[in-house]
């Protein structure tokens, strides 16, 4: 845990939030402000480059990575409502620039300054109690985003934040740590495999009898919500930022 509480962070909303879920970016901003932290939004930001990188198009990913490094390189705290985009910067930029020593130095420099939202709240700010309540009486289950868990190693943060809200206790689903089958272009390259993985996730959500699925990545939620919607399962998918923003007084 850091000794200094930052008074200002730079927000990277991610392209998916920008285009499809702006309310997640707004909730992120709102929580940070409620905690007394000033939020900066760099308007030139776009995408970290992950979609291209994951599909093998590293030439297309590199200019976006460089753009990110230019925009955020000097910022002391960079917060993202996505474990996957944070992993891209913290873990995968290293692969992308493995033959470029100079950029690699910048990558190593920026890595420790990038935080996924739940990590930032739990580990940097040290949020352990919140003036909050479970206003909507949600019955919450938590889906672990893969990159958050396995690239960033953040398993406890989001769960402890949720459980911090008085009156809100996670109803664990079976196989919460198993991938929902999204995987970027994997979902359209292998729709049958991805769809079968999604079905397991939907079944586990149903069996948990929760009415709300929470995760720290809008892409997982896009996939899960899309599946639930397709099958008319009345379970709401919300990002951790939205859940906390709604709960905090």
């Amino acid at each position, binding site marked *: 845990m850091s000794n200094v509480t930052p008074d200002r962070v730079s927000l990277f909303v991610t392209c998916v939030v920008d*285009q499809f879920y*702006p309310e997640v970016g707004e909730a992120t901003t709102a929580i940070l402000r409620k905690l007394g932290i000033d939020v900066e939004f760099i308007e030139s930001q776009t995408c970290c480059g992950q979609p291209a990188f994951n599909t093998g198009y590293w030439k297309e990913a590199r200019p976006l990575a460089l753009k990110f490094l230019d925009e955020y390189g000097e910022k002391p705290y960079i917060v993202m409502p996505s474990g996957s985009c944070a992993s891209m910067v913290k873990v995968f930029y290293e692969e992308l620039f493995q033959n470029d020593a100079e950029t690699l130095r910048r990558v190593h420099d920026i890595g420790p300054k990038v935080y996924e939202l739940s990590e930032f709240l739990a580990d940097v700010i040290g949020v352990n109690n919140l003036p909050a309540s479970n206003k909507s009486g949600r019955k919450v289950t938590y889906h672990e985003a893969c990159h958050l868990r396995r690239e960033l190693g953040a398993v406890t943060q989001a769960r402890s934040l949720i459980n911090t809200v008085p009156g809100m206790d996670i109803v664990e689903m079976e196989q919460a740590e198993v991938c929902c089958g999204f995987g970027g272009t*994997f979902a*359209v390259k292998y729709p*049958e495999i991805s769809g079968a993985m999604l079905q397991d996730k939907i079944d586990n959500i149903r069996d948990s009898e929760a009415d709300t699925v929470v995760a720290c990545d809008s892409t997982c939620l896009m996939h899960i919500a899309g599946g639930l919607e397709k099958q008319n399962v009345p379970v709401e998918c919300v990002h951790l930022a939205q859940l906390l923003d709604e709960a905090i007084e």
Partner: protein
Amino acid sequence: MTSTTKNFKSAAKTVIKDTEVQSHLKGLYSGFNMARIHEAEATPNWEDLQNRAQAIKFHTIENLDYYLDMAATNVEKAGGQVYFAKDAAAASEYVLKVAKENGVRTVIKGKSMISEEMELNQQLAEKEIEAIETDLGEYLIQLAGQTPYHIIVPAIHMSRGEVAEILSDNLGTPKDATIEEMAGAARDELRDKFVQADMGITGANFLVAETGTLTLVTNEGNGRMSTSMPKTHIAIMGMEKIVPSMEDMGIFLRLLIRSATGQRISSYVTQVTGPRASEEEDGPDEFHLVIVDNGRTKMLADPNLREALNCIRCGACLNACPVYRKVGGHSYGWVYSGPIGAIVSPVLTNVPDAKDLPYASSLCGACKEACPVKINIPRMLLYLRNELTEGNYDPTRKKSSIGEFIAFKGWGLIVKDPVFMRIANWLGRLGQWPLVRAGQLRNLPPPLSAWTRYRTFPRLVKPFRDRWKSNEQ
């Protein structure tokens, strides 16, 4: 083994529809996978063991020439004979030569994945030598004329009914035989073969370089029988199976067995150093060790793939993989399946033919998390994807998917500039209008129908950047 990696997609689709097989695959999560997790948690200093094993593996592979030489010297010192085979064909040829010299008619085989690379059973059959698999799972696979479905549990896909059918056809057991009766019948049959066989062929879990000792891990004792009963024993191993010292075995056996089956120790751990010495009562007159390359030096030569040689073939990544648990082992189309197979099989066969394998992963990292020697499998999958897209495996520079290529080029142009993103968002919102039903896109045309077949897609909205502007003013 003939590669059918090209057919991955269609094979996977068939398996996904097979409810019987799906139920077996599902069991891998609650069974072996959870057993591994439980044992890892119950083992003191598990992560220290992993780190030590990883360091030993990296060191050994970096100095493989040195340790292979040491291993060969010590096997020979113990009275064994060593043959280095550059490929599967050379390895088979050597085995056939030794068999011929010894007038071998019947071979008993311990479990060996590398013999699958060689298609050794077929090679022996062509010379009219009968080879019998003695691991029960492998035996069933052999009787059914199939290939292993899983590194550790080769017949995991077979139902009890199928097994009953196979044994009934081959051993005459009743079709409603109990599991005990079936196992008993197989046991009786295999006992006779153990006694008759002129030659035993096994794989190798490890070869200890400093002593020249072969180590085999089994639960059925068939490894011990295969190495000690026949007059001649041939052990075949991939060149990466070396560990430097006997001390290392303490680490690797802990990791391998717990990761493979969730047992603390397997029923049998067999160690063999050379043929029977004059003062010993048991053991073969001849011991041969065949060390096989068969493409492994390609992995060794590529610093981005070298780590794949650290694999100790425990199968934990298969059990942990949500993709393997859907598509099963045969879909991968060659000897090795699952996450590690998606690297090893393409590289050891033909990467362009196996191009679907590195992409058949959501990059969830469950494999990396499960791996006892911490192999970073997603990193290598990503590397292979890049090589397939922009690198050395596309010799004609012809993009495998021109549509995807154009899509990413176009996407790259748009997202590099927030102004272009704004325009694209605006155009997208206009264009999507006729397709939006209750706030969602429900049926998109190909190729996006691949998405909407299983999920709805969110509609584009006024972007965060624009809302920020108006909110802040």
